[in-house]
Protein backbone atom coordinates (compact mmCIF):
# COMPACT_ATOMS: atom_id res chain seq x y z
CA UNK A 1 0.00 0.00 0.00
CA UNK A 2 2.74 2.38 0.98
CA UNK A 3 4.72 1.41 -2.11
CA UNK A 4 1.64 1.97 -4.23
CA UNK A 5 1.14 5.43 -2.78
CA UNK A 6 4.75 6.33 -3.34
CA UNK A 7 4.53 5.06 -6.93
CA UNK A 8 1.49 7.22 -7.47
CA UNK A 9 3.18 10.37 -6.20
CA UNK A 10 6.28 9.58 -8.23
CA UNK A 11 4.15 9.18 -11.30
CA UNK A 12 2.37 12.44 -10.62
CA UNK A 13 5.63 14.25 -9.94
CA UNK A 14 7.09 12.81 -13.13
CA UNK A 15 4.05 13.86 -15.09
CA UNK A 16 4.22 17.34 -13.61
CA UNK A 17 7.74 17.90 -14.86
CA UNK A 18 6.92 16.40 -18.23
CA UNK A 19 3.82 18.60 -18.47
CA UNK A 20 5.82 21.80 -18.36
CA UNK A 21 8.09 20.53 -21.14
CA UNK A 22 5.15 19.29 -23.24
CA UNK A 23 3.98 22.81 -24.00
CA UNK A 24 6.25 22.77 -27.02
CA UNK A 25 5.85 24.83 -30.15
CA UNK A 26 3.66 22.22 -31.88
CA UNK A 27 1.30 22.03 -28.92
CA UNK A 28 1.06 25.82 -28.70
CA UNK A 29 0.33 26.03 -32.42
CA UNK A 30 -2.37 23.38 -32.13
CA UNK A 31 -3.97 25.13 -29.15
CA UNK A 32 -3.93 28.51 -30.90
CA UNK A 33 -5.32 27.10 -34.14
CA UNK A 34 -8.15 25.38 -32.25
CA UNK A 35 -8.93 28.65 -30.45
CA UNK A 36 -8.83 30.53 -33.79
CA UNK A 37 -11.14 28.01 -35.46
CA UNK A 38 -13.61 28.26 -32.58
CA UNK A 39 -13.66 32.05 -32.82
CA UNK A 40 -13.93 31.91 -36.61
CA UNK A 41 -16.87 29.56 -36.32
CA UNK A 42 -18.71 31.90 -33.94
CA UNK A 43 -17.94 34.94 -36.11
CA UNK A 44 -19.17 33.18 -39.25
CA UNK A 45 -22.25 31.85 -37.52
CA UNK A 46 -23.45 35.27 -36.37
CA UNK A 47 -21.82 37.51 -38.91
CA UNK A 48 -22.14 35.90 -42.35
CA UNK A 49 -25.69 36.91 -43.15
CA UNK A 50 -25.26 40.49 -41.85
CA UNK A 51 -22.10 40.65 -43.99
CA UNK A 52 -23.99 39.61 -47.10
CA UNK A 53 -26.72 42.15 -46.35
CA UNK A 54 -24.21 44.96 -45.80
CA UNK A 55 -22.37 44.12 -49.03
CA UNK A 56 -25.66 43.92 -50.91
CA UNK A 57 -26.99 47.21 -49.58
CA UNK A 58 -23.84 48.99 -50.74
CA UNK A 59 -23.95 47.90 -54.39
CA UNK A 60 -25.32 50.15 -57.11
CA UNK A 61 -28.24 51.01 -57.39
CA UNK A 62 -28.45 51.29 -53.61
CA UNK A 63 -31.67 49.79 -52.32
CA UNK A 64 -33.56 51.60 -49.60
CA UNK A 65 -33.70 50.30 -46.04
CA UNK A 66 -37.47 49.76 -46.05
CA UNK A 67 -37.08 47.37 -49.02
CA UNK A 68 -35.33 44.94 -46.71
CA UNK A 69 -38.45 44.52 -44.63
CA UNK A 70 -41.40 45.13 -46.90
CA UNK A 71 -42.80 42.25 -48.94
CA UNK A 72 -43.29 44.28 -52.12
Amino acid at each position, binding site marked *: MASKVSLKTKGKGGKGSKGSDEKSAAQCLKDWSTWAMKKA*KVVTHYGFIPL*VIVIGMN*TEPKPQLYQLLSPV
Partner: protein
Amino acid sequence: MAGLVPPGTTAVPADVSHTAHTKHDEKTDYMNLPCPIPYEELHREALMSLKPETFEGLRFDFTKGLNQKFSLSHSVVMGPTEIPSQSAETIKIPTAHYEFGANFIDPNLMLIGRVLTDGRVNARVKWDLTDNLTVKANAQLTNEPHMSHGMFNFDYKGKDFRSQFQMGNGALFGASYIQSVTQHLSLGGEVFWAGQHRKSGIGYAARYETDKMVATGQVANTGIVALSYVQKVSDKVSLASDFMYNYLSRDVTASVGYDYILRQCRLRGKIDSNGCTTSYLEERLNMGLNFILSAEIDHRKKDYKFGFGLTVG
Protein backbone atom coordinates in the same frame (compact mmCIF):
# COMPACT_ATOMS: atom_id res chain seq x y z
CA MET B 1 -5.68 48.81 -95.35
CA ALA B 2 -3.31 46.44 -97.11
CA GLY B 3 -2.11 45.31 -93.71
CA LEU B 4 -5.69 44.69 -92.51
CA VAL B 5 -6.83 42.58 -95.48
CA PRO B 6 -4.51 39.54 -95.10
CA PRO B 7 -5.58 38.73 -91.49
CA GLY B 8 -9.22 38.97 -92.60
CA THR B 9 -8.72 36.51 -95.43
CA THR B 10 -6.85 34.06 -93.20
CA ALA B 11 -9.45 34.29 -90.40
CA VAL B 12 -12.41 33.26 -92.56
CA PRO B 13 -11.01 29.96 -93.92
CA ALA B 14 -10.01 28.99 -90.36
CA ASP B 15 -13.60 29.54 -89.16
CA VAL B 16 -14.98 27.42 -91.97
CA SER B 17 -12.53 24.64 -91.26
CA HIS B 18 -13.38 24.77 -87.51
CA THR B 19 -17.09 24.30 -88.23
CA ALA B 20 -16.18 21.48 -90.58
CA HIS B 21 -14.32 19.81 -87.69
CA THR B 22 -17.16 20.08 -85.23
CA LYS B 23 -19.88 19.10 -87.67
CA HIS B 24 -18.26 16.35 -89.67
CA ASP B 25 -15.74 15.12 -87.07
CA GLU B 26 -13.19 14.41 -89.73
CA LYS B 27 -10.14 15.07 -87.63
CA THR B 28 -9.92 15.99 -83.96
CA ASP B 29 -7.56 18.76 -83.07
CA TYR B 30 -5.94 17.36 -79.96
CA MET B 31 -4.46 20.72 -79.10
CA ASN B 32 -7.85 22.40 -78.90
CA LEU B 33 -10.01 20.12 -76.84
CA PRO B 34 -12.93 21.62 -74.93
CA CYS B 35 -12.69 22.16 -71.20
CA PRO B 36 -14.40 19.31 -69.34
CA ILE B 37 -17.14 19.86 -66.79
CA PRO B 38 -16.14 19.85 -63.12
CA TYR B 39 -15.57 16.45 -61.51
CA GLU B 40 -18.38 16.79 -59.01
CA GLU B 41 -20.84 17.56 -61.82
CA LEU B 42 -19.99 14.44 -63.76
CA HIS B 43 -23.43 12.91 -63.36
CA ARG B 44 -25.14 16.26 -63.76
CA GLU B 45 -27.64 15.38 -66.47
CA ALA B 46 -28.61 12.09 -64.84
CA LEU B 47 -28.97 13.74 -61.44
CA MET B 48 -31.13 16.53 -62.82
CA SER B 49 -33.48 14.09 -64.50
CA LEU B 50 -33.54 11.28 -61.98
CA LYS B 51 -33.18 12.97 -58.62
CA PRO B 52 -35.46 15.97 -58.32
CA GLU B 53 -35.71 17.49 -54.86
CA THR B 54 -38.84 15.76 -53.67
CA PHE B 55 -40.36 16.91 -50.44
CA GLU B 56 -43.34 16.15 -48.25
CA GLY B 57 -45.82 18.72 -47.08
CA LEU B 58 -46.02 22.37 -47.92
CA ARG B 59 -43.23 24.45 -49.33
CA PHE B 60 -43.40 28.15 -50.01
CA ASP B 61 -40.43 30.10 -51.38
CA PHE B 62 -40.40 33.80 -51.92
CA THR B 63 -37.39 35.49 -53.49
CA LYS B 64 -37.32 39.23 -53.53
CA GLY B 65 -34.75 41.00 -55.63
CA LEU B 66 -33.62 44.32 -54.28
CA ASN B 67 -30.99 44.88 -56.89
CA GLN B 68 -29.46 43.20 -59.92
CA LYS B 69 -27.02 41.45 -57.64
CA PHE B 70 -28.67 41.32 -54.22
CA SER B 71 -31.79 39.42 -53.22
CA LEU B 72 -33.44 38.13 -50.10
CA SER B 73 -35.33 34.89 -49.85
CA HIS B 74 -37.96 33.67 -47.41
CA SER B 75 -38.93 30.05 -47.28
CA VAL B 76 -41.56 28.24 -45.22
CA VAL B 77 -41.60 24.46 -45.02
CA MET B 78 -44.21 22.50 -43.09
CA GLY B 79 -44.41 18.77 -43.15
CA PRO B 80 -43.30 15.50 -41.68
CA THR B 81 -39.57 14.97 -41.58
CA GLU B 82 -38.05 11.54 -41.50
CA ILE B 83 -35.68 10.70 -38.70
CA PRO B 84 -33.27 7.82 -39.09
CA SER B 85 -34.41 4.75 -37.20
CA GLN B 86 -32.91 1.35 -36.67
CA SER B 87 -36.10 -0.56 -37.40
CA ALA B 88 -37.49 -1.12 -40.85
CA GLU B 89 -40.39 1.31 -40.49
CA THR B 90 -39.91 4.99 -41.09
CA ILE B 91 -40.51 7.42 -38.23
CA LYS B 92 -41.76 10.85 -39.16
CA ILE B 93 -42.04 13.89 -36.99
CA PRO B 94 -44.03 16.91 -38.12
CA THR B 95 -41.83 19.96 -38.30
CA ALA B 96 -42.28 23.49 -39.52
CA HIS B 97 -39.58 26.01 -40.09
CA TYR B 98 -38.88 29.33 -41.67
CA GLU B 99 -35.66 30.04 -43.48
CA PHE B 100 -34.31 33.47 -44.29
CA GLY B 101 -31.69 33.86 -46.94
CA ALA B 102 -29.55 36.58 -48.44
CA ASN B 103 -27.86 36.18 -51.83
CA PHE B 104 -25.27 38.36 -53.42
CA ILE B 105 -24.38 37.34 -56.96
CA ASP B 106 -21.64 39.12 -58.85
CA PRO B 107 -19.70 37.81 -61.86
CA ASN B 108 -16.68 37.29 -59.61
CA LEU B 109 -18.12 36.76 -56.18
CA MET B 110 -21.12 34.84 -55.02
CA LEU B 111 -22.27 34.84 -51.39
CA ILE B 112 -25.28 32.82 -50.30
CA GLY B 113 -26.38 32.63 -46.71
CA ARG B 114 -29.36 30.88 -45.18
CA VAL B 115 -30.48 30.86 -41.57
CA LEU B 116 -33.19 28.64 -40.09
CA THR B 117 -35.39 29.19 -37.07
CA ASP B 118 -33.41 26.70 -35.01
CA GLY B 119 -30.22 28.68 -35.46
CA ARG B 120 -28.56 26.66 -38.19
CA VAL B 121 -26.63 28.72 -40.71
CA ASN B 122 -25.75 27.52 -44.17
CA ALA B 123 -23.13 29.66 -45.91
CA ARG B 124 -21.69 29.33 -49.40
CA VAL B 125 -19.02 31.49 -50.95
CA LYS B 126 -17.63 31.30 -54.47
CA TRP B 127 -14.85 33.68 -55.39
CA ASP B 128 -13.21 33.82 -58.83
CA LEU B 129 -9.75 35.06 -58.05
CA THR B 130 -8.63 34.97 -61.68
CA ASP B 131 -10.10 33.52 -64.87
CA ASN B 132 -8.75 30.12 -63.97
CA LEU B 133 -8.60 29.97 -60.18
CA THR B 134 -11.73 29.76 -58.06
CA VAL B 135 -12.09 29.46 -54.31
CA LYS B 136 -15.26 27.98 -52.91
CA ALA B 137 -16.29 27.59 -49.30
CA ASN B 138 -19.27 25.84 -47.86
CA ALA B 139 -20.27 25.71 -44.20
CA GLN B 140 -23.16 24.34 -42.16
CA LEU B 141 -22.99 25.78 -38.67
CA THR B 142 -25.16 24.80 -35.76
CA ASN B 143 -25.39 25.74 -32.14
CA GLU B 144 -24.71 22.18 -31.06
CA PRO B 145 -21.04 21.56 -30.51
CA HIS B 146 -19.19 19.27 -32.91
CA MET B 147 -22.05 19.22 -35.40
CA SER B 148 -20.77 21.94 -37.70
CA HIS B 149 -19.11 21.23 -41.01
CA GLY B 150 -17.00 23.39 -43.26
CA MET B 151 -15.25 22.77 -46.53
CA PHE B 152 -12.90 24.79 -48.73
CA ASN B 153 -12.32 24.03 -52.40
CA PHE B 154 -9.62 25.45 -54.63
CA ASP B 155 -10.32 24.91 -58.33
CA TYR B 156 -7.90 25.44 -61.13
CA LYS B 157 -9.19 25.34 -64.68
CA GLY B 158 -6.69 24.73 -67.44
CA LYS B 159 -7.20 24.72 -71.20
CA ASP B 160 -8.55 21.19 -71.35
CA PHE B 161 -8.40 20.02 -67.75
CA ARG B 162 -9.74 20.90 -64.35
CA SER B 163 -8.21 20.17 -61.00
CA GLN B 164 -9.57 20.69 -57.52
CA PHE B 165 -8.20 20.50 -54.02
CA GLN B 166 -10.50 20.42 -51.03
CA MET B 167 -10.04 20.67 -47.28
CA GLY B 168 -12.73 20.16 -44.72
CA ASN B 169 -13.07 20.01 -40.97
CA GLY B 170 -12.29 16.75 -39.31
CA ALA B 171 -9.04 16.59 -41.32
CA LEU B 172 -10.82 15.84 -44.59
CA PHE B 173 -8.64 16.32 -47.65
CA GLY B 174 -9.47 15.57 -51.25
CA ALA B 175 -8.16 16.20 -54.71
CA SER B 176 -9.63 15.55 -58.12
CA TYR B 177 -8.52 15.93 -61.69
CA ILE B 178 -10.39 15.60 -64.96
CA GLN B 179 -8.95 15.86 -68.46
CA SER B 180 -10.48 15.96 -71.92
CA VAL B 181 -8.98 13.12 -73.90
CA THR B 182 -10.87 13.47 -77.16
CA GLN B 183 -13.59 15.81 -78.37
CA HIS B 184 -16.24 13.79 -76.57
CA LEU B 185 -14.46 11.76 -73.92
CA SER B 186 -13.06 13.00 -70.65
CA LEU B 187 -11.41 10.96 -67.93
CA GLY B 188 -10.74 11.87 -64.35
CA GLY B 189 -9.80 10.62 -60.93
CA GLU B 190 -10.08 11.64 -57.31
CA VAL B 191 -8.51 10.80 -53.97
CA PHE B 192 -9.71 11.69 -50.52
CA TRP B 193 -8.51 11.18 -46.98
CA ALA B 194 -10.74 11.54 -43.93
CA GLY B 195 -8.59 11.84 -40.84
CA GLN B 196 -11.30 11.63 -38.26
CA HIS B 197 -12.77 8.41 -39.58
CA ARG B 198 -9.40 7.07 -40.71
CA LYS B 199 -10.69 6.41 -44.22
CA SER B 200 -9.15 7.08 -47.55
CA GLY B 201 -10.38 6.44 -51.02
CA ILE B 202 -9.52 6.70 -54.66
CA GLY B 203 -11.89 6.77 -57.57
CA TYR B 204 -11.90 7.04 -61.35
CA ALA B 205 -14.51 8.46 -63.68
CA ALA B 206 -15.18 8.70 -67.37
CA ARG B 207 -17.69 10.76 -69.29
CA TYR B 208 -18.61 10.44 -72.95
CA GLU B 209 -20.74 13.23 -74.27
CA THR B 210 -22.21 14.04 -77.67
CA ASP B 211 -25.02 16.38 -78.69
CA LYS B 212 -27.58 13.65 -78.25
CA MET B 213 -26.39 11.61 -75.31
CA VAL B 214 -24.22 11.56 -72.23
CA ALA B 215 -22.78 8.40 -70.72
CA THR B 216 -20.81 8.45 -67.48
CA GLY B 217 -19.15 5.85 -65.34
CA GLN B 218 -17.54 6.10 -61.93
CA VAL B 219 -15.68 3.53 -59.84
CA ALA B 220 -14.35 4.06 -56.31
CA ASN B 221 -12.48 1.86 -53.88
CA THR B 222 -15.25 2.41 -51.31
CA GLY B 223 -17.01 -0.18 -53.42
CA ILE B 224 -19.23 2.03 -55.54
CA VAL B 225 -19.72 1.54 -59.24
CA ALA B 226 -22.07 4.11 -60.76
CA LEU B 227 -23.05 4.20 -64.41
CA SER B 228 -25.52 6.52 -66.04
CA TYR B 229 -26.85 7.17 -69.51
CA VAL B 230 -28.94 10.12 -70.65
CA GLN B 231 -30.40 10.33 -74.15
CA LYS B 232 -31.76 13.58 -75.43
CA VAL B 233 -34.61 12.38 -77.60
CA SER B 234 -35.65 15.87 -78.65
CA ASP B 235 -35.12 19.33 -77.19
CA LYS B 236 -38.18 18.83 -75.01
CA VAL B 237 -37.73 15.23 -73.92
CA SER B 238 -34.83 13.39 -72.43
CA LEU B 239 -34.66 9.91 -71.01
CA ALA B 240 -32.19 8.85 -68.36
CA SER B 241 -31.15 5.66 -66.68
CA ASP B 242 -28.84 5.03 -63.78
CA PHE B 243 -27.19 1.97 -62.27
CA MET B 244 -25.46 1.95 -58.92
CA TYR B 245 -23.73 -1.09 -57.47
CA ASN B 246 -21.78 -1.39 -54.27
CA TYR B 247 -19.59 -4.45 -54.54
CA LEU B 248 -18.67 -4.42 -50.86
CA SER B 249 -22.16 -4.31 -49.45
CA ARG B 250 -23.80 -6.05 -52.44
CA ASP B 251 -26.35 -3.30 -52.88
CA VAL B 252 -27.80 -2.67 -56.33
CA THR B 253 -30.09 0.10 -57.50
CA ALA B 254 -31.20 0.77 -61.04
CA SER B 255 -33.54 3.53 -62.08
CA VAL B 256 -35.10 4.75 -65.29
CA GLY B 257 -36.67 8.15 -65.75
CA TYR B 258 -37.83 10.84 -68.08
CA ASP B 259 -37.61 14.59 -68.16
CA TYR B 260 -40.05 16.65 -70.18
CA ILE B 261 -39.13 20.32 -70.48
CA LEU B 262 -42.15 22.00 -72.00
CA ARG B 263 -43.02 25.65 -72.39
CA GLN B 264 -45.14 26.01 -69.27
CA CYS B 265 -43.97 23.13 -67.16
CA ARG B 266 -41.23 20.68 -66.38
CA LEU B 267 -42.23 17.13 -65.55
CA ARG B 268 -39.78 14.54 -64.26
CA GLY B 269 -40.60 10.99 -63.35
CA LYS B 270 -38.63 7.93 -62.45
CA ILE B 271 -39.03 4.37 -61.33
CA ASP B 272 -36.54 2.48 -59.25
CA SER B 273 -35.56 -1.12 -58.71
CA ASN B 274 -36.32 -0.63 -55.01
CA GLY B 275 -39.98 -0.30 -55.88
CA CYS B 276 -39.97 3.48 -55.58
CA THR B 277 -41.58 5.80 -58.11
CA THR B 278 -41.10 9.52 -58.05
CA SER B 279 -42.68 12.33 -59.93
CA TYR B 280 -42.00 16.05 -59.81
CA LEU B 281 -43.95 18.74 -61.64
CA GLU B 282 -43.06 22.41 -61.84
CA GLU B 283 -45.77 24.43 -63.53
CA ARG B 284 -45.27 28.03 -64.48
CA LEU B 285 -48.54 29.74 -63.67
CA ASN B 286 -47.39 33.24 -64.45
CA MET B 287 -44.20 35.22 -64.76
CA GLY B 288 -42.26 34.44 -61.62
CA LEU B 289 -44.96 32.22 -60.10
CA ASN B 290 -44.30 28.48 -60.08
CA PHE B 291 -46.47 25.75 -58.69
CA ILE B 292 -44.74 22.55 -57.59
CA LEU B 293 -46.16 19.09 -57.03
CA SER B 294 -43.99 16.29 -55.73
CA ALA B 295 -44.83 12.64 -55.18
CA GLU B 296 -42.66 9.79 -53.99
CA ILE B 297 -44.23 6.38 -53.52
CA ASP B 298 -42.12 3.62 -52.01
CA HIS B 299 -44.05 0.41 -52.35
CA ARG B 300 -41.54 -1.73 -50.54
CA LYS B 301 -41.29 0.39 -47.40
CA LYS B 302 -44.91 1.54 -47.68
CA ASP B 303 -43.83 5.16 -47.44
CA TYR B 304 -45.95 7.65 -49.37
CA LYS B 305 -44.85 11.23 -49.65
CA PHE B 306 -46.83 13.94 -51.36
CA GLY B 307 -45.94 17.57 -51.38
CA PHE B 308 -47.11 20.78 -52.93
CA GLY B 309 -45.57 24.19 -53.03
CA LEU B 310 -45.43 27.59 -54.55
CA THR B 311 -42.35 29.54 -55.62
CA VAL B 312 -42.55 33.25 -56.12
CA GLY B 313 -39.76 35.18 -57.76
